[in-house]
């Protein structure tokens, strides 16, 4: 079949199999939840059903390693897509396994909760896979809409609805800005296809520089909003604090990584010819994001807000790799995203296990955790040290490679600033660690144990944090193979 302009199109639906599996699983989960009483199913079936679907999708997505095919010129299935397919399905599996006890206790609508996580995974994957602005936009909205609802699912917590309101309204404004930018880009390039935009921009835009720059400003602002980059971050701490903990973990992991994946796909592909026009913008918001995220984190008392600002800081480091866009910095970015996901999820899964036991989100609540549960204290410590960039942990190695790539790319001042801010960040991570190790427990000093799945997820993630810190070559090789397809 050919489209109107005569390009041949292939409709190989098997290329979409992983997402079809996930979407079907999502509807099955909602259905199973709705008819739970009639079907005599326990509530436990829902997370396991979701995990089975995700595992199947993950396995199937491995079929297309080292292929380069597209579906109707709308999405590409290449190593980059496969990398993020695996990353996002794995993240969803970890979040679901690590939080099912929390979900049973604190979430009003369990079936919808799992279905929304599954659905947002589909959106995240297509954000990385899109090769047309239209697919990219719809994918962004699939991810955002699932999260708007998921944020509001906490039971008996008035903060939840408020967070959802702010997230939805500001997310809508961000979408509108992004779309206006995209419409200008479409006007300049005359197409929504990545390849044709790239061709049009490379051929020279002549008198179109102004609309192009305006479009880029709006695109960077809209995407910056979605990635919670400063100065578009205002909703982030509120959304993080009001959301149920697993959703906070999920937003800080998948949502951020998906926006960065889209950022990289756009700025290394269709928008690469306009590099001089956007480089300064991304550098600017990278500096602001690193600086403000880390400095405001110093004053936080709530663990969710602390992690929110810490994740804003992390986005700043990642944007630095977009600024110096090249094969090296792109691979470094993917490596850092991988390391960040493992580390950040380790911290969040530990915090979820902690919250299940104690019901507090205050940092002062972590007092004496080293006595009551030394294992959990160790996981949080390792995770926080890794986020802060201590050697022998994932965060150090991935940050080191990322900063070196930025310095080599001609942005030494940016890399220097990142190193300084990374050092600052150690201070607030140490505050939490201090609470756990230097103080006596406030109340109950008895030892307690995690649930089996709690042990499983935290142990796997802890192992990942340590292994990546010592031996990251395999992941780096994978990241390198994934980014080779970006720069043709």
């Amino acid at each position: 079949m050919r489209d109107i302009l005569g390009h041949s199109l292939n409709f190989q639906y098997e290329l979409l199999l992983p997402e079809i599996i996930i979407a079907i699983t999502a509807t099955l989960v909602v259905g199973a939840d709705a008819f739970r009483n009639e079907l005599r199913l326990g509530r436990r079936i829902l997370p396991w059903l979701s995990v089975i679907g995700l595992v199947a999708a993950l396995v199937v997505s491995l079929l297309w390693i080292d292929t380069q095919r597209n579906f109707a010129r709308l999405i590409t299935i290449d190593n980059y897509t496969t990398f993020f397919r695996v990353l996002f399905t794995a993240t969803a599996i970890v979040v679901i396994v690590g939080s099912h006890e929390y979900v049973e206790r604190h979430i009003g609508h369990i079936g919808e909760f799992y279905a929304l996580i599954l659905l947002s995974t589909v959106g995240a994957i297509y954000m990385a896979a899109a090769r047309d602005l239209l697919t990219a936009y719809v994918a962004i909205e699939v991810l955002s809409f699932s999260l708007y609802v998921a944020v509001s699912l906490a039971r008996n917590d008035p903060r939840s609805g408020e967070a959802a309101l702010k997230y939805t309204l500001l997310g809508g404004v961000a979408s509108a800005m992004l779309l206006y930018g995209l419409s200008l880009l479409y006007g300049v390039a005359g197409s929504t296809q990545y390849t044709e935009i790239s061709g049009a921009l490379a051929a020279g835009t002549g008198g179109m520089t102004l609309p192009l720059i305006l479009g880029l400003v709006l695109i960077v602002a809209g995407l910056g909003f979605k990635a919670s980059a400063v100065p578009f971050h205002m909703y982030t701490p509120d959304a993080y604090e009001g959301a149920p903990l697993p959703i906070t973990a999920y937003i800080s992991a998948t949502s951020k990584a998906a926006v960065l994946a889209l950022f990289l796909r756009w700025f290394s592909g269709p928008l690469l010819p306009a590099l001089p026009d956007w480089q300064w913008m991304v550098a600017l918001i990278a500096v602001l994001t690193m600086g403000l995220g880390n400095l405001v984190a110093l004053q936080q008392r709530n663990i969710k807000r602390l992690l929110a600002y810490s994740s804003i800081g992390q986005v700043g480091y990642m944007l630095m790799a977009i600024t110096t866009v090249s094969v090296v910095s792109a691979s470094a970015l993917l490596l850092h995203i991988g390391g960040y996901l493992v580390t950040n999820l380790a911290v969040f899964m530990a915090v979820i296990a902690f919250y299940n036991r104690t019901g507090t989100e205050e940092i002062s609540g972590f007092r004496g955790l080293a006595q009551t549960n030394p294992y959990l204290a160790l996981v949080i410590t390792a995770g926080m040290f890794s986020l802060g960039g201590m050697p022998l942990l994932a965060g150090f190695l991935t940050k080191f490679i990322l900063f070196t790539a930025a310095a080599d790319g001609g942005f030494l001042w940016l890399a220097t600033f990142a190193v300084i801010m990374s050092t600052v960040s150690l201070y607030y991570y140490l505050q939490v660690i201090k609470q756990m190790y230097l103080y006596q427990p406030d109340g109950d000093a008895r030892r307690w144990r995690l649930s089996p799945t709690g042990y499983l997820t935290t142990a796997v993630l802890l192992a990942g944090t340590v292994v990546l810190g010592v031996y990251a070559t395999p992941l780096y090789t994978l990241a390198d193979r994934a980014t080779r397809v970006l720069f043709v």
Partner: protein
Amino acid sequence: MESIGIIVAFWALAVTTVGAALGVLVSRNLLHAIFFLITSFLGMAGLFITLSADFIAAAQVLIYAGAISVLLVFAMMLTPLASRDNANSLYLAPGALAGLGLAAIVGFVAVDTPWAELAGSTLAERSFPDTVRTIGAQLIGRYVLAFELASVLLLFALIGAVVLVHDRAAERGAAAAAEEAGTGPREEAT
């Protein structure tokens, strides 16, 4: 096509659209704002027709002026205290400044750019395409994936909206009626 009629139509519709949009801004009563919004959307549908996008115009009337407006009126009825006296209060001056600045910048860029000559297309001789046929063929053909993705999005927006407004009290009543005992003790806080 090159008649004076289409030019008159454009200006009439443009004035209606922008005027009604400004009306949305200054209304204190939510219902008035919604009526202004409907007027603005209908003006826009007319503008889409002058752009020869008749299908988009129909969609605009059905979805925006129809469905969305009804939804907004329903929301207004369900939030009785919120519908009156919506004075502007937040960031009035900075907002006006930002709005005017944005209009000036975007408008300047739109007017200043010689779109037509750069695009190199022959605007005047262009025949009006059969947009319904084109759009239909593209939606089910080339853009089928985006179409499917959007339908998944709508399905889950529907589920999400139901979940959001689901009444907790009714849920508890239903839960009490259903035999939940087998799945363990359920936290029943208000």
